[in-house]
């Protein structure tokens, strides 16, 4: 009887589809801390609990959907943890009554136990302190703010390397540089002797390669290089179609444009392979960089300038047998390439004094498969953004853009609001005119602190930011449930991306405007 795994598989049915088994394991081992369980915070937590088994810590819970009248008199954070546990009985939840401020200032070691920290509505002063605690412990940090129709989150997560970026519609067909085993296979086809059913079921990759060989024989071994040559090549294919709508030939013709680019190492990957982390492998190098280095060495040697073959084929018109055969040929080549990379990884591991099997072969296999799409994000530290290296010029440019929907304005105002609360207290229940005036002053101060000259800061505040300041004042310090829920969805998604190291997370700030229903992402 396997009732329990079956039930679990059913319950996590959807997640397994998206995250696959490795991601699910990462989620199960995650230990997430939420500071300030505001409406937004609770939404994030709810979303994280539904898909995973994260252990949750949270403090300072305010009233929201997960509290009912029976909770009065109970600790709010305890009540929330109880309700959230109802959602997923496998989750371990803890709550803590101490204030985030106390923990950050007096007991920073508290945060060492977590794999991820999420803080909502934290003051910028505390956020900066928490960010340096997280930086030292190498713990990813999410800072989330949400007021009225606007919300934003900032990620600080050190160096994030992603192998499984899940690119869409990607395939590496090697039309211009076919590998020998495939060429051998293409030679098996005698197009002239086929009946029309066989002719209509030759996989288009074979069709294309067959005619490319014909072309090359007539053109000094060169491929159709220019637009007009490619059109000429298409005519060659069209001429031999047995019917006007022979699907496999149509597929072949539709792929001719791909000959315009040559197979090789894409530029973004090239910069990763040229990175000092890839050059200098030590025993402290992460798996990502060791495999990246093995790939680089592969490209320069066995690969003759090419990456390992992913071995993935798109669907195409063909009979089952023919398609499976083609798939096997591509897969065989992919396995050979992978094995070469694998032995290079083992060599590298041994050379720095590590066990040759220290890296799981699955990880190497995935890297080979997704090599052209792997990603490295180096998050800027909050301290750089606020104090040491603000992106003055770019922020100024974004602000001066005429597009009224440029969401960067909300970033400045969120920071101004933080200054406002620090200097004048709560945004709630104040006279609108007074709030607007004080917020304007704060905005100018924030712009100056970013490094914008005072006269320009004043001009930007009055000419550009004023309408948004008025709207912000009209929020009256309220957190709108829909915006909180929306931010909860977005943040939970990014949290899971970072925990599972799958898909590409935001770098580094995402701002949502619920008046216009727009989002924008900035490196701040």
């Amino acid at each position, binding site marked *: 009887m396997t009732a329990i795994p079956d039930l679990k598989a059913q319950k996590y049915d959807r997640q397994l589809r998206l995250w696959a088994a490795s991601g699910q394991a990462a989620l199960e081992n995650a230990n997430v801390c939420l500071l300030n369980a505001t409406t937004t915070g609770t939404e994030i937590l709810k*979303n994280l609990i539904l898909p995973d088994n994260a252990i949750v810590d949270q403090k300072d819970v305010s009233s*929201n959907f997960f509290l009912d009248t029976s909770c009065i008199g109970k600790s709010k954070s305890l009540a929330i943890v109880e309700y959230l546990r109802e959602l997923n009985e496998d989750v371990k939840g803890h709550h803590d009554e101490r204030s985030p401020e106390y923990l950050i200032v007096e007991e920073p070691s508290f945060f060492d136990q977590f794999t991820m920290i999420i803080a909502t509505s934290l003051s910028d002063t505390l956020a900066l302190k928490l960010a340096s605690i997280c930086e030292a412990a190498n713990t990813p940090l999410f800072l989330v703010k949400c007021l009225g129709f606007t919300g934003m989150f900032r990620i600080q997560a050190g160096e994030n390397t992603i192998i499984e970026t*899940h690119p869409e519609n990607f395939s590496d067909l090697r039309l211009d540089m076919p590998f020998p085993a495939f060429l051998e296979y293409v030679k098996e086809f005698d197009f002239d002797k086929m009946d029309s059913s066989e002719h209509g079921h030759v996989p288009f990759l074979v069709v294309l390669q067959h005619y490319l060989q014909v072309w090359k024989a007539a053109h000094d071994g060169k491929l159709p290089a220019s637009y007009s040559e490619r059109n000429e090549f298409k005519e060659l294919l069209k001429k031999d179609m047995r019917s006007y709508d022979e699907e496999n030939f149509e597929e072949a013709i539709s792929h001719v444009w791909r000959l315009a680019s040559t197979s090789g190492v894409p530029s973004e990957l090239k910069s990763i392979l040229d990175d000092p982390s890839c050059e200098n492998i030590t025993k402290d190098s992460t798996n990502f960089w060791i495999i990246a280095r093995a790939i680089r060495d592969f490209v320069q040697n066995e690969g003759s300038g090419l990456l390992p073959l992913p071995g993935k084929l798109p669907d195409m018109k063909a009979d089952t047998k023919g398609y499976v055969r083609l798939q096997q040929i591509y897969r065989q080549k992919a396995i050979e390439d992978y094995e070469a990379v694998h032995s290079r990884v083992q060599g590298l591991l041994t050379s720095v004094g590590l066990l040759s099997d220290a890296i799981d072969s699955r990880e190497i296999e995935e890297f080979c498969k997704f090599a052209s799409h792997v990603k490295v994000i180096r998050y800027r530290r909050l301290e750089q953004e606020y104090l040491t290296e603000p992106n003055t010029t770019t922020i100024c440019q974004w602000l001066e853009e005429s597009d009224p929907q440029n969401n960067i304005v909300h970033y400045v105002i969120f920071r101004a609001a933080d200054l406002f609360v620090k200097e004048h207290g709560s945004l709630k229940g104040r006279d609108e005119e007074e709030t607007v005036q004080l917020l304007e002053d704060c905005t100018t101060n924030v712009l100056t602190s970013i490094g914008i000259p005072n006269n320009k800061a004043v001009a930007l505040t009055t000419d550009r930011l004023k309408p948004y300041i008025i709207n912000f004042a009209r929020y009256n310090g309220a957190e709108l*449930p*829909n915006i909180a829920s929306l931010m909860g969805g977005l943040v939970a998604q990014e949290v899971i991306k970072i925990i599972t190291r799958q898909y590409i997370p935001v770098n580094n700030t995402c701002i949502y405007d*619920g008046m216009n*229903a727009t989002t924008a992402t900035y490196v701040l």
Partner: protein
Amino acid sequence: MTVPEAKRQRRENMLDTQEENAHSLDSSSPQPVETVTYANEDSVMTDSSQVEEPETNGHIVPLNSAEITTALESCKILVIGAGGLGCEILKNLALTGFNDIHVIDMDTIDLSNLNRQFLFRSADVGKSKALVAAEFVMNRMPGVKITPYMGRIQDKDEDYYSQFQIVICGLDSIEARRWINAMLVSLVDDESPESLIPMVDGGTEGFKGQARVILPTITSCYECSLDMFNKPNSFPICTIANTPRLPEHCIEWASVLEWPRVFPDKKYDTDNPEHISWLYETALTRAKKFNIDGVSYFLTQGVLVLRLVYGKFLISMALSAACCNEAFKIATSVAPFLNNYMMYTGNDGVYTYTFEHQKKPECPVCGTVAIKIDIDPDMILEDFLDVLKEKPDTQLKKPSLRTATKALYMQAPPPLEKASRPNLVLKMGDLVEDGDEITVTDVALPVSMQLKVKLITK
């Protein structure tokens, strides 16, 4: 201001906005490109057609105003669907301050719903989604009235739908959306602004999704944008386990239930032909048992590869919240609502594209122009039916065709089907003439569709 006055005022405000929208439709604003490109770190994704809207830079109503509460309290809103999106929508609307909410869902709660549909608990398995969701939210939010209905949207008539000021959809069924969209378009009466009921719709597919606002007859409707959606490709677990109908169901059964049972420690690899072959054979055996045709190696691979990319996830949380935010703005006029479409993708960062989807003059539901169609006179009627089924902008299943004077082919009732069947092998050129109008009816089509024939010899 009395409640009815406030209502009328809101309607008028809304109509004002619509007039402006109508202008921007006239002005030759370029059709936005619908291909999704990904955001670079430093770029902002917006569409220029939004810029001209005067309210964009305008001021909102202060969020603590009493008029917001009054407007929300006088708004009767219908939620269609109480699944993943629907649960979120109900919770959000209740928290927002709507207090007269109706919800329709025909489904009962399944074990695999529990992890995403947070209003349901193990003890609720087998009960009505609409009833349990309504009870849960009312329990948590005293003062909110939620009226559940367990059943099909088609059970209800015009009178029922006319009682609402907003309809918000949390559905994953294209058919149901087409039906409710056509219903709301049909309710519009130019003499009575009350008859115009905005529809807010959200949908997801894996890391993609959309939120949109449809003002029936004024903005583009669901049917106008049908060609943007593919057919859904995920199936309820109970169908897979008990009542497979489609070849895809057999493949899902092989991969979701049989593979983990036979190989509990191994995950199948969609790039490994041996694994796919095993799943294909297993699915085929099952298909034979149920007399289902169409399980092929390609289909097996197609279904499995898609499985890893598509599915429903956190995106539905974000999008249902976006929909509720639009409902909030429509109900209260606190800020301009979405005009009219927001697309979302989340696999590479967070990316949205907000644009005005254009109304289609030849839309069978809200358009006024017949669809022009070129027909080869030598094509036989049966092949022409297949052409219609494959058209992405109509997505027909079993079309019945007639002209003003005769029935070309009728799927039902049986005597008519039998009488019109001989036409299937006749050439179109012998059945219709240039300039004829063919009326198409179909189970998938909520209204009839007019085709204007142009005979063109190929």
